[in-house]
């Protein structure tokens, strides 16, 4: 029975409509409770800003990131963000740390915790590679984890869509989630991964996937319907076609429109569209390239069926990594950069390429502005998840810096002054004066995640929630966040306290203890007859095409030492 009482916390908890109100928080056995006994340990928050632990719903933290590490020993020495990057010797509580964009697994846990994050979601798990993802999850200390499973170029999926077998499709997706211990359906450049098997790509929503006779639009729609049939906690999580191409905002809006009328099984969005910065480009080439954020934001403002995340760019070195294989190859040729690729049998593709976003480069400057424009032009913060698609747009350790861009027009103006003239004409940011407050920031960094992932014990501080709490060294009643952005950045860069499951894991910016986190996964139940019928087809796939036997394919229990199984019933 461990009890903890946090006194004098100025709580910012949008799920419970609490906007910076001074109150106490009672914790018992890792959960937030009504009250605790007088024997409880007391922490005096002294009027400091207190939020639920942050939830990063789209980050690359396990699996493909190891390819990025492998190919970039130079990244291990980078110290771009002091205290949150580079090499650190082991201590009595912590393992050795290295890296910036691609830190080692231990550093990922410590550094997210220092930022006040307590839950992270890996954005892409190939089913056949899922065991590896979970091995790395296990190595990441402190944080709770979940991962999204790739289905968008999967042979079995495409065949069931082509053959109009929705029941078998649902049974297969349920099985794939179980095999990978995944939390939801990720779709990356639908159909593009298969086309990349021949060095090609799909050009848009209606361009049929070679040899499979389905279109990206059909893949998105069918998987979205499956998602609702399975009653999954998250919606489909879509990385649109044509990522990174001028003019792609049209594909993005068209993809969003596909699901306007989808009936959802739960009170949440019908789709989440990810790292939209990379998919909100106007123009027809890199010459007339300009921001397409206003068009996308306008559509999002008019729609009520979707959420999205930013994929904000941070100036400096980054590491791109995505299941979008053709995009990474194109990146490497354009940037003359080293290129790693991993095509995954029957399932998908992927690639990794280093990049540097320079404020002097017109294209990079516009990209930087697009992410911010999306956040600021979309009226409802509950539709917006803050991400850098770490480390694609930049490492997560830059989140505090990025918050200041969202919260302070003054800070934005400073950056904009250093951008090339040509870029300014291609963006809308200089004309935007909206400044997010702490409440809106809390929505974009933890509260909306609670809703979009249906994680009702995460992202808020109400009774029954997990006692995952961040106390920042910042007093909301005595700071003007629009002006004092240096103080804002400093406070969000290292918490006064991070509490995970009721235990103090960070104190005064230092790691205090390193408990093991849990892994969330979804066990979607479907009628056994559908599974049996599906297994007949799947057995053929294993017999003829996979190089791993089905018996060795599914992630074993041994790889989830602390599982949290979410069970759903098909509708």
């Amino acid at each position: 029975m461990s009890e903890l009482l946090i006194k004098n916390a100025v709580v910012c908890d949008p799920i419970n409509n609490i906007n910076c109100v001074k109150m106490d928080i009672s914790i018992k056995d890792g959960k937030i409770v009504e009250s605790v006994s007088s024997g409880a340990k007391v922490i005096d928050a002294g009027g400091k800003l207190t939020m639920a632990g942050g939830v990063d719903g789209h980050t690359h933290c396990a699996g493909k990131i190891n390819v990025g590490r492998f190919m970039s020993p130079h990244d291990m020495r980078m110290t771009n963000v002091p205290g949150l990057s580079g090499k650190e010797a082991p201590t009595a509580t912590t393992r050795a740390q290295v890296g910036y964009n691609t830190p080692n697994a231990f550093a990922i846990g410590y550094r997210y915790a220092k930022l006040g994050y307590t839950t992270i979601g890996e954005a892409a798990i190939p089913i056949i590679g899922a065991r590896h993802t979970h091995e790395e999850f296990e190595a990441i200390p402190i944080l709770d984890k979940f991962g999204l499973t790739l289905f968008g170029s999967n042979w079995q999926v495409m065949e069931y869509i082509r053959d109009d077998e929705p029941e078998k499709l649902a049974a297969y997706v349920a099985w794939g989630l179980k095999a990978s211990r995944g939390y939801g359906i990720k779709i990356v450049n639908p159909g593009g991964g298969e086309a990349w098997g021949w060095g090609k790509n799909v050009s848009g929503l209606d361009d049929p996937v070679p040899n499979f006779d389905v279109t990206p639009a059909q893949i998105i729609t069918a998987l979205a319907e499956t998602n609702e049939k399975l009653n999954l906690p998250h919606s489909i999580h879509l990385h649109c076609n044509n990522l990174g191409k001028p003019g792609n905002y049209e594909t993005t809006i068209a993809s969003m429109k596909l699901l306007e009328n989808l009936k959802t099984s739960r009170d949440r969005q019908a789709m989440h569209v990810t790292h939209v910065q990379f998919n909100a480009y106007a123009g027809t080439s890199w010459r007339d390239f300009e921001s397409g954020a206003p068009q996308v934001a306008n559509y999002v403002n008019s729609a009520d069926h979707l959420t999205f995340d930013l994929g904000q760019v941070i100036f400096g070195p980054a590491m791109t990594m995505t299941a979008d294989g053709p995009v990474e190859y194109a990146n490497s040729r354009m940037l003359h950069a080293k290129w790693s690729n991993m095509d995954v049998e029957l399932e998908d593709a992927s690639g990794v390429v280093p990049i540097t976003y320079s404020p002097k480069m017109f294209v990079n400057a516009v990209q930087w502005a697009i992410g911010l424009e999306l956040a600021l032009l979309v009226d409802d913060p509950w539709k917006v998840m803050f991400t850098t698609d770490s480390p694609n747009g930049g490492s997560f350790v830059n989140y505090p810096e990025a918050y200041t861009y969202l919260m302070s027009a003054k800070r934005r103006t400073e950056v904009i002054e250093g951008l090339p003239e040509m870029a300014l004409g291609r963006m809308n940011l200089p004309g935007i004066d909206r400044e997010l407050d702490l409440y809106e920031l809390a929505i974009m960094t933890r509260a909306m995640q609670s809703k979009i992932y249906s994680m009702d014990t995460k992202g808020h501080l109400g009774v029954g929630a997990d006692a995952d709490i961040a106390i920042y060294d910042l007093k909301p009643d005595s700071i003007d966040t629009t002006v004092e952005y240096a103080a804002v950045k400093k406070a969000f860069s290292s918490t006064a306290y991070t509490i995970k499951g009721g235990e103090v894991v960070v104190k005064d910016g230092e790691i205090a203890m390193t408990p093991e986190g849990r892994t969330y996964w979804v066990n979607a139940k479907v009628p056994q007859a559908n599974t049996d019928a599906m297994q007949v087809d799947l057995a053929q796939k294993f017999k003829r095409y996979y190089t791993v036997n089905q018996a060795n394919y599914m992630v074993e229990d041994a790889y989830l030492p602390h599982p949290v199984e979410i069970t759903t019933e098909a509708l």
Partner: protein
Amino acid sequence: MAVITDAICSLCGSLCDDITVTVEDNVITDVERACILGRNKFVGMFLHDRIESPMIRKNGELVDVSYEEAIDEAAKILVNSKRTLSYGWCSTSCEAISKAIQLAEETGSLIDSTANVCHGPSALAVQEKGGPSATLGVVKNRADVMIFWGCNPAHAHPRHMRRYSSFSKGFFTQKGRKDRKMIVIDVRKTDTAKIADQYVEIDQGSDYLLVTALRSAINGHEDVIPDTVAGVSKEDILKLANTLKEAKFTCVFYGMGVTQSRSKYKNGDGVSSLISDLNQHSKAVMIGMRGHYNVTGYGQVSTWETGYPMAVDFTRGAPYYNPGETGANDVLTRGDVDAAIISAADAGAHFPQDSLKYLAKIPVIQIDPYANPTTELSDVVFPAAVVGVEAEGTAYRMDGISLRMKKLIDTKFKTDEEIVVDLINKVRELKRGA
């Protein structure tokens, strides 16, 4: 009698996962589908040359001691050492590797894998140019052209060609071998070369020249190619380049003939660049033919735990990586370590003479199921369970797919992982006492 299906062969980097093993009275009596190498590992070999007891060298002789005494002695060596070399860890599980890295971190040691003497240069090539690759099943289902460069799977990976490459049948390659063109590039006509459609014999150590010429041809600069390159005529080079350009899907499998020949990592760098260029015309990938069954796993675990795939030095606390300086043989030839712990690899049989001479001078701890030339150099010896036969755990296939190895029979021996954990605890205890 128990029949265990879908067992994984933990011998070579092919990591075949379709083996059926029959166990009677805790002895493996039958093995189905494994090749001769794998079969030998499953049946018989684990009975012979086993180290039976923990041993300590006393007055020049290895004598049996209790496990506790050996742990004591080994921990003392580690604690008294200024800088230990931890080496091997490629024929063991990822779980054991993870613990070995933790031990190295806590003792300020330098830890390196067998990649130091095989595919290390491939890692350097990836760091230079990237690694455009694919899982083996992609090759099985798609590749119509495959090149075996400086490798001889017929001997080193006997089931590779049937399961994954030349003879396998897949979705777009229903006719198997008939649907594929098989090319071997090597310095001598190996048994793999004998069954190829085309054998390209090159001069010893000239791989880089040939890669460069091929790239020139593929990129439309055939005018710069001399009449013969690497012992191959320009005409043949142009033909080969054309085959690659017109292929639907090419996979280059490369082996130690490429990574350990002259120009070392530059060869892999060249092949990676070649693959990138080829993708302008068709689809192409490359896969390293890794030997030890889990040398790939070592690279993976080391990378996510330390940031680097091999040759990691914890002497200064935080990991430091500088192959050429921090590789196992670099420090041994320089005499820059004062103790060694060697596990699941045979340095005694594979290291150059200078390194061995130095190893003979310093205290060496060995953890291994088998007595081998390293044992002769060792001062403390721990017998271990055979991972993949007597202990379960994770291993990575040559293409980076990880699989769970099964425990097939019981053993009295501790696993590598258990031994390393005991060492970590004893080292902590000694440090606290100091």
